[in-house]
């Protein structure tokens, strides 16, 4: 029997380090192998940024000198750069302009590494954020019950062994895109990614082993499986790797949640922990009121998005850029006509950006309507969707991640990929 003194002296730590012997050791070995490239050396990475709130595609990439647009957007339409107005969009030389907030992306456009897909979106008519995000993330417009997200299915179709870091969302909660059978990680700050007890890290390490044993044996399946993934991941990404990370090429990320997310995705790409699908979010696109033009709400969001992407690409540098393909997405577009509050309401088609060294860039892809008069619009008010988002995602995941089974990636979809990447 232990005396109280004995308990105080020897207690605690030893208590928790039980029962994890053999599995722990095999797993550590597997992790070491993966970290050194044993699981298949460098991986292709698909990076996705979800612009929550529905980006106004006609403000991001407007038609230039369009009387119809100016007519319905007396306060929101921008002139072309060449006309030299205060409210000037960058002239992309294709009849389209680029909102000046996206200026940081212009070099990639000129290098033909950045493509725009316009009038893209979901065939489902919903104008609800919740539904439209859900449909875009599940990849099954009109079908609520789909249990998995499309990125999760993409991971499942990779066809090779993967590490716990195969799919990472830089979000506090798992996004719908990554729901499903394939384990994924959601974390806002990699530095927190360990069992921590400030001032007593040795205790935390031991407690971590105790937790591992406890969660291994819980009858609650979700807790058990999630914990198992958690501890595998911990073995792969060492705290010092995170602490010592410095962006390359003098990169300075925007001091924003998105900038922070992109910096960490770059870290994971370069750490070689087996990242294959990354997910980040950008908020604040639901511009119902006081949207602004060159300045204002939209411009701020645009600058943050473009600045974060530009920093990410620069940080990756030539060594890693070939591995990475980045795409933005947003649940729908906004009304062509401005509303009574200096903003735009929920619409239909929008646009998205694709960045990568194999991208057929410097082009606006998709089919844009001949004019923006109401006869050409969806329900007489919105930019129509002429390209199903699945045609884009399928092309990107298909070519970049070598996924062949489009029917399993997007169940129920019978369309064709939109050519966007060179072979």
């Amino acid at each position, binding site marked *: 029997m*232990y005396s*109280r003194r004995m*308990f105080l002296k*020897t*207690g*605690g730590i030893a*208590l*928790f380090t*039980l*029962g*994890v*012997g053999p599995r*722990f050791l095999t797993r550590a070995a597997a992790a070491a192998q993966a970290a050194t490239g044993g699981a298949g050396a460098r991986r292709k990475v698909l990076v996705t940024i979800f612009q*929550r709130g529905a980006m106004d595609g006609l403000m991001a990439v407007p038609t230039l000198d369009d009387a119809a647009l100016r007519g319905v957007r007396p306060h929101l339409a921008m002139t072309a750069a060449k006309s030299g107005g205060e409210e000037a969009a960058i002239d992309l030389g294709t009849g389209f302009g680029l909102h000046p907030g996206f200026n940081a992306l212009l070099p990639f456009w000129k290098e033909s590494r950045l493509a725009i897909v316009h009038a893209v979106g979901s065939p489902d008519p919903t*104008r609800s*954020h*919740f539904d439209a995000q859900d449909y875009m993330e599940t990849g099954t417009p009109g079908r*609520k019950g789909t249990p998995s997200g499309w990125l999760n299915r993409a991971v499942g179709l990779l066809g090779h062994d993967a590490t716990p870091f195969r799919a990472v969302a830089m979000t*506090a*909660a*798992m996004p719908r895109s990554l*729901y499903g059978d394939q*384990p*994924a990680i*959601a*974390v*806002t*700050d990699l*530095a927190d990614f*360990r069992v*921590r*007890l400030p*001032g*007593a*890290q040795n*205790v*935390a*390490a031991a*407690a971590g082993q105790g*937790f591992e044993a*406890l*969660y291994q044996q*819980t009858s*609650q399946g979700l*807790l*058990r499986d999630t914990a198992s*993934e*958690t501890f595998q991941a911990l073995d792969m990404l060492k705290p010092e790797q*995170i*602490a*010592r990370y410095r962006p390359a090429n003098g990169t300075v990320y*925007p001091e924003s*949640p998105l*900038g*922070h997310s992109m910096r960490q995705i770059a870290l994971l790409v370069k750490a070689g922990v087996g990242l294959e699908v990354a997910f980040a979010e950008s908020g604040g696109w639901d511009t*119902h009121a006081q949207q602004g033009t060159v300045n204002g709400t939209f411009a701020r969001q645009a600058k943050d998005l473009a600045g974060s992407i530009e920093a990410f690409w620069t940080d990756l540098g030539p060594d890693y850029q070939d591995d990475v393909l980045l795409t933005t997405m947003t649940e729908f577009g906004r009304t062509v006509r401005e*509303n*009574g509050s200096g903003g735009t309401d*929920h619409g239909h088609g929008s646009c998205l950006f694709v960045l990568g060294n194999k991208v057929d860039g410097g082009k606006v892809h998709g089919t844009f309507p001949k004019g923006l008069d109401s006869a050409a619009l969806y*329900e007489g008010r919105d930019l129509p969707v002429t390209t199903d988002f699945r045609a884009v995602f399928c092309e990107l995941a298909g070519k970049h991640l070598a996924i062949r089974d489009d029917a399993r990636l997007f169940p129920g979809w019978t369309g064709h990929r939109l050519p966007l990447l060179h072979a």
Partner: protein
Amino acid sequence: MKAATLIVIALAAAALCLPPGGGVAVLSAGTERQPSVHLPWKAAGLTEREAAAHLLNRFAYGPRPGQVDEVVKMGLDRWFERQLAGNLPDPRVTADLRPLPALALPSADIVRTYPNPGEVLREAKKAGAVPQDAEKKSEDPEQRKQTRQAVLRWAAQQGYHPQKELLDQLTAQKLYRAVDSENQLAEVMADFWLNHFNVSLTDNKARPWLLSYERDAIRPHALGRMRELLEATARHPAMLLYLDNAQSTAAANATTTIEDEMERRPMRRGRGRFGVQRPPAAGLQPAAKKQRGVNENYARELMELHTLGVDGGYTQADVIQVARAFTGWTIIPPARREEAERRLARAQRAGGLGFATQGDFLFRADMHDAGAKVVLGKHLPAGRGMEDGEDVLDLLAAHPSTARHLATKLAVRFVSDQPSKALVDHLSTVYLQSGGDVRAMLRAIAESPEFWSRQTVGAKIKSPFELAVSAIRSTGAHVDDPQAAVQWISHMGEPLYAYQAPTGYPDRAEAWVNTGSLLNRMNFGLQFASGRVDGVGLDLPALHGGKEPESRQEALTVYANLLLPGRNLDPVLKQLTPMVTDPGLAQKIDDAAPRREAADGDDDTMMMNEGAARPRAARLAKAGQGGARKGMGNQIRPPRDLHPPTPLEQVVGVILGSPEFQRR
């Protein structure tokens, strides 16, 4: 409550009898005679202690020390009845909330006292306290600092307080009430409804109104009726601003109520004061034609999220019609209240003209689309005013789709992530038969066999808020300063009041449990138990009558039973017991895996490195610094004095971080 009884203002009278909160804060009474409750736990094969613990885990934020036994002694039925009534005296909460001055202020005063920083800057410029182009000089840090200080000085002279103080009080009161309130079910329901009628502090227009929203629109009706909740949320500035209805006006080509009114009362035209051309703009700026237009946002979420549900059988046409019905539902801007009231009084003397006000709510007849509407097949005749919106709320509250939507959400909240169709059907019926009575539905849940089945017990995963509150309650900890705990809740994935979308947080296990958040839950358990959650004091030995356990085995057994009362702990205890009987095993494992310890490194150096390496954005993130940042991986500052955790703290930390403690 029908509109007609409330509106067509008698401004003078209204001004006299307005309660401080500005709302109709009538607690729909627990005094109605209810038949006595019968909870069928025995039939489900639970012991009385198990049943009491289950009750406390679902209809309260978990048991306090000794509370399971108290509930058993009182009788489970009686405990539940008292919770349904929700009117127990609450001296602890009263004491907790005393230091929070914003809670006692009328809503408009809150907004005036804690204005948005942007608002302050604008006013300071207008008053000449800082130059007009102040922010343009922002490249110069010294200049920036001076400007900031000048603005702060000026703001203090005006009696303004930093908005962070308001947001800290907002989160503090939520935590205090959940931890200490005797009326636990009312707290659980306030949380449920706030999430159901979500307004996010990430929206800076709505942000200063949130405290009043919860206090005046949600809390008084948390155990009331759906129709009351709809009325209260529809009229509250937080919702009107968050979903943009405050600026939704009749389309430029539509006839407004006041125009219609003037058409019908030509004799008034001669009086000259309120010609059709210049309607009495009761807010401040007249509803200028160029700024006119219907905004659909509120109408859509009202049907999709608040009432019918997404598959509830409405169309885009209904959304537009409902949006038209709510045109003119707006707010009295607090900064211009006196002017607005003066104008309203004039309108009143002119015979009402269809304007109405209640608290901060304002119905503007000059913004309302007076045309006829058809909503879900029901015809709303032309020429009306605020009745349009009221009729829509009546229609939606009584709709079978609303019954089903709420039945499902309540069943998910209280029973399981996948409630049976039979239970949802039953609750829908109860909703329709009781006229949307929340108490009747809660009672039906508690009286259902499904609630008491063994599969249901422990089936829900606690939200981060539930986890933190139940940890505080179960350890009998004392909260001196809630902010570190609030940050932990955010860190585990539930930034309070900050879910950006009107959907509110999803209520299912997968939304809360992922690799990152699970790790944070374990860390919370460890750090909480060892006193590393700043501002929360706990005395673990006192829980066990001041007696320190004699052994690890005893510590484990005693504290697992204290913290997880009424649960079957055999599996957990069995896992940990071998360690006690074979202490050498730990050493063996340590020897087998030496690299792991080394890799974790010296943590103090590590912490400094982390701080240095992390971008400022991450360190910046803290309450009040712009809602969007709240959800980020914010560094939580532990207390200065970090003693090495005692063995007892380690034991308790592992219990709180264990899978069992994540469940309710």
